């Protein structure tokens, strides 16, 4: 059993990646995730691995593409405006079916926005971001410990499906310190990269080509169908979520992820004292979205659902697609780096439930 250490979220990200066998890290400074790069710059050379500060986020993600195509575990990290710049590369990586891990410590947008915590990159992360028919697996941890665990999962899932995986934390998670344990993990049986990685022939007969170009429409359609099949597998196997206080008859179910979900748990305790039975669905994978969690509670939830976000309702449509019009879906959010107080959220719940009983 490893011991617990007190660590800043961004530094824990770096250590988790190292423990997961990340061989190369390519980064670029941007608040509020710069400590990831700083940590990697200290640690990676000491253990014979690669840290490189790129000339831009665009270059960093293309370095990731090169390293991933070479068959090594690789990660990059950035924050919202920087992740926008990475989208071109992410699309190529998805198209070429390469495994890698991308960290987004989200800050408020749009544009240069601000540097305080936000969740306003939900659409970008879950609906595409770059061009073409592709998907990212998107993990949304709510604590430093969960972030560490999910980063280690992320490398495995990326390798299993040959797909980029994003771990999305809000700025709060990157900046706060929490006790964290780097658990010893049993070695997973992972697919070999030898049949596709471009490592140099070394006696191999057929050359390997890392590529996302298919000029013949028939071939590109076939490739897209193959990707869609893979995404269907991911939707079947990799959904993660937590249901909190969701037993029995419910007045309202909150839907929230990341650090805000922790505020929601406090709200639930507050409202219980006032006689309101409130549950929480906490998506841990934002894509694939945990649709089935809604099936479990939709018939037992009197007033419907409330999406609580650090964005302007970006998760609402995924909730609506899961609820399928059977109950109302409401929204409460703050944005721009503002974080709601438990009272604000509680008041919204009471408003929906028709005032305090």
């Amino acid at each position: 059993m490893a011991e617990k250490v007190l660590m800043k979220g961004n530094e824990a990200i770096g250590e988790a990646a190292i423990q997961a066998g990340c061989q190369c890290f390519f980064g670029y400074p941007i608040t509020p995730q710069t400590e990831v790069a700083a940590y990697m710059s200290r640690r990676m050379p000491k253990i014979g691995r690669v840290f490189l500060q790129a000339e831009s986020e665009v270059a960093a993600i293309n370095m990731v593409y090169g390293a991933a195509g070479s068959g090594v575990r690789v990660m990059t990290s950035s924050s919202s405006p920087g992740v926008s710049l990475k989208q071109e590369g992410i699309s190529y990586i998805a198209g070429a079916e390469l495994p890698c891990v991308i960290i987004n410590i989200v800050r408020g947008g749009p544009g240069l926005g601000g540097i305080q915590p936000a969740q306003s990159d939900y659409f970008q992360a879950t609906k595409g971001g770059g061009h073409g028919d592709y998907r990212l697996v998107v993990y949304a941890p709510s604590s430093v410990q969960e972030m560490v665990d999910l980063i280690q999962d992320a490398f495995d899932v990326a390798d299993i499906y040959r797909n980029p995986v994003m771990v999305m934390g809000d700025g709060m998670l990157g900046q706060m310190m929490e006790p964290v344990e780097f658990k010893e993990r049993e070695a997973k049986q992972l697919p070999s990269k030898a049949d596709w990685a471009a490592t140099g022939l070394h006696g191999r007969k057929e050359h390997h080509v890392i590529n996302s170009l298919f000029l013949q429409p028939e071939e590109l359609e076939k490739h897209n169908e193959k990707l869609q099949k893979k995404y269907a597998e991911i939707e079947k196997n990799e959904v993660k979520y937590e249901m909190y206080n969701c037993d029995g008859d419910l007045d309202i179910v909150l839907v929230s992820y990341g650090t805000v979900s922790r505020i929601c748990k406090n709200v639930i305790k507050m409202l219980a004292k006032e006689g309101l039975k409130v549950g929480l669905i906490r998506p841990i994978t934002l894509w694939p979205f945990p649709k089935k969690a809604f099936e479990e509670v939709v018939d037992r939830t009197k007033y419907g659902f409330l999406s609580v976000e650090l964005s302007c309702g970006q998760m609402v449509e995924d909730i609506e697609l899961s609820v399928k019009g059977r109950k109302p879906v409401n929204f409460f959010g703050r944005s721009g780096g503002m974080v709601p107080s438990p009272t604000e959220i509680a008041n919204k719940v009471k408003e929906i439930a028709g005032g305090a009983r």
Partner: protein
Amino acid sequence: MAVVFEPTKGLLDVPTHYCPGCTHGIIHRLVAESLEELGVIDKTIGVAPVGCSVLAYNYFACDMHEAAHGRAPAVATGIKRSLPDSVVFTYQGDGDLAAIGTAEIVHAAARGEKITTIFVNNCIYGMTGGQMAPTTLPGQVTETSPYGRDVKLQGHPIRVSEMLSTLDGAVYVERVSVDSVANVLKAKKAIKKAFELQIEGKGFTFVEVLSICPTNWGLSPRESIKWLQDNMIPYYPLGVKKDITQQEVK
């Protein structure tokens, strides 16, 4: 019977898509021969660009990556840093390298990445049908400079080799041409030397190859060669722009 010429093992035995008269075929061959003669095909990884040579990954026999437009030096950096014992090259045109990929090539050179870049300069965007490139000469007519490139409006061409030779990380920079047999042989020598210095771990090596584009210049191959000699070579003088092995001798 003595064999006087045979295919290089560095290229696959497949037809290419290049236009009649295009010099990409010659340049591919020079790269492939160099890799074969140095005995490194087995541990070489090439990076193809976006542009006319986008399909180069179908022609080179070594492992290949296809990069996004301009990003080949960053992709090559990721490869070389992951597999430091490999030989890594990028093959890029002037639109790819000198416009959208300027940051990537400058910083790969500045870092002294141990990669080799083959830069094919034909003063035009070929693949998209002949638009003005950063290397298009003053007065040159292209699809997007129909009145001739006016440097007051469209700026000046970039001499990439001269620019990169100012960077400490670049150890060998030469501009060559494939307009004559003599120059093809010089080009081969330069390309081979660039790979040798990479293998020795010296740093970033760069060979600019002046090339023709009969299709988009609207000239016959023979006229194109003359146009290169009369117009390109005066603006883009051939020769070694930087060679640390020579400096060491001094």
